[in-house]
């Protein structure tokens, strides 16, 4: 009995040490690529420019409810769908985006972080529609912002900038596919960057400003 207790104590301490090592693991906090000069920028701000949000029941972090009806079915309970207004560099509404998100099976708590597959359908009225696929590592945001405040009740130390895009393209960029209009047939890359400007214990006290950088060939055509 004594031997069993000692072995179990050792296992628990070892697991605790590993948990600490994972929390401070440098492999999972790498950030995405910096946007290139000349990329087309579409901006959003949260919560002002959120048109709608529906979140899967198992995607709710730290058990928090979003206050809207969730996606409860087994097949979609780790997904989210968000409607956003995107503005141009002058701050004028320029596009509407539907952002379909799903927790990624490529999540690896040791080497890659907590990965979310992000699928944007972006329509620029009068121009056309783009499909953007990106893999976003949300672990830095969870570790530095969400978990300390929501789970450990610590004061938020912000503002904080995040560049979550880590794929699927080489160079930590997402992929862009022109679906319709002037964009049809074009392909390119994308990166996202966002600043959390306020974060509190309730969702109403959270705000962020994000940017989606689109790099397409013949950029000047898309910007007309």
């Amino acid at each position: 009995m004594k031997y069993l207790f000692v072995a179990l104590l050792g296992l628990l301490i070892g697991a605790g040490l590993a948990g600490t090592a994972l929390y401070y693991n440098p492999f999972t906090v790498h950030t995405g690529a910096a946007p290139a000069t000349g990329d087309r920028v579409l901006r959003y701000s949260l919560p002002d420019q959120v048109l709608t949000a529906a979140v899967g029941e198992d995607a709710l972090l730290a058990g928090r409810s979003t206050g809207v009806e969730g996606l409860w079915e087994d097949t979609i309970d780790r997904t989210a769908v968000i409607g956003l207004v995107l503005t141009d560099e002058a701050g004028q509404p320029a596009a509407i985006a539907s952002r379909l998100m799903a927790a990624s099976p490529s999540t690896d708590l040791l080497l890659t972080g907590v990965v979310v597959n992000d699928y944007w359908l972006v329509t620029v009225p009068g121009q056309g529609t783009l499909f953007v696929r990106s893999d976003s590592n949300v672990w830095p945001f969870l570790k530095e912002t969400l978990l300390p405040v929501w789970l450990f009740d610590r004061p938020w130390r912000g503002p904080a900038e995040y560049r979550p895009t880590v794929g699927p393209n080489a160079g930590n960029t997402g992929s862009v596919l022109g679906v319709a209009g002037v964009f049809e047939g074009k392909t390119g890359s994308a990166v996202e960057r966002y600043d959390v400007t306020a974060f509190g214990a309730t969702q109403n006290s959270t705000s962020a400003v994000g940017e989606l950088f689109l790099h397409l060939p013949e950029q000047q055509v898309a910007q007309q």
Partner: protein
Amino acid sequence: MRALFLLGIVLGFGGTLAAAHWVPWISHHRLPSQTTVVANGGRAEQFLIHLPADRIAATDGKTGGLRSTGADRAMLLPAKFDAEPLLVEHYKVRDSTGQVVGIAARHWANGDHGMTATWSLLVPARGSIVLRAPGEKSGVLDAALQRAGYSPGAAWEGKLELALAQGGAVAGGTGDFAGLSGSYTETWKVTGVDASGAMRGTIELYTVTRIQ
């Protein structure tokens, strides 16, 4: 005793790291794919959307007609887009057996050469597929319902079948849908409209794809 304690620490440490790396922390529930083989090659798959149960939200623009006003949750467009021919709809998506398998967004908007309709369907366990087609005329569904006897503000029951996209194409995909090309049709089968404008019926997306 000391050796056992140290061995426990090593095993606990290594086991936890191994679990962090190898345990599939995220695994989406997957239902069998309801695909059928097409006689002249390729595979066919039908996705269904039941109205009103599967409607998540729709934009409130003037051009959306019943598809905007009948939504439980409206997406309030900025004033700049209010008069634009623009309709964004979010849905849950079912397979041909009626099981919910994914979520979807439909964008209907003016492109550089006329209206376009695009779908992004996400089936978490399989990937995503993007569809595009020439967009329907503004208010086509409302007009068809009125021809079938529907009066705005009044309840209606009947049967209306309307093809919104013929000759649509598969524009891209990821995961199981990567590398596929093909076509799709979009058919709205409306069986009723209540007094508030909420439609009952089914949207059918019928895809025929083959590996490029």
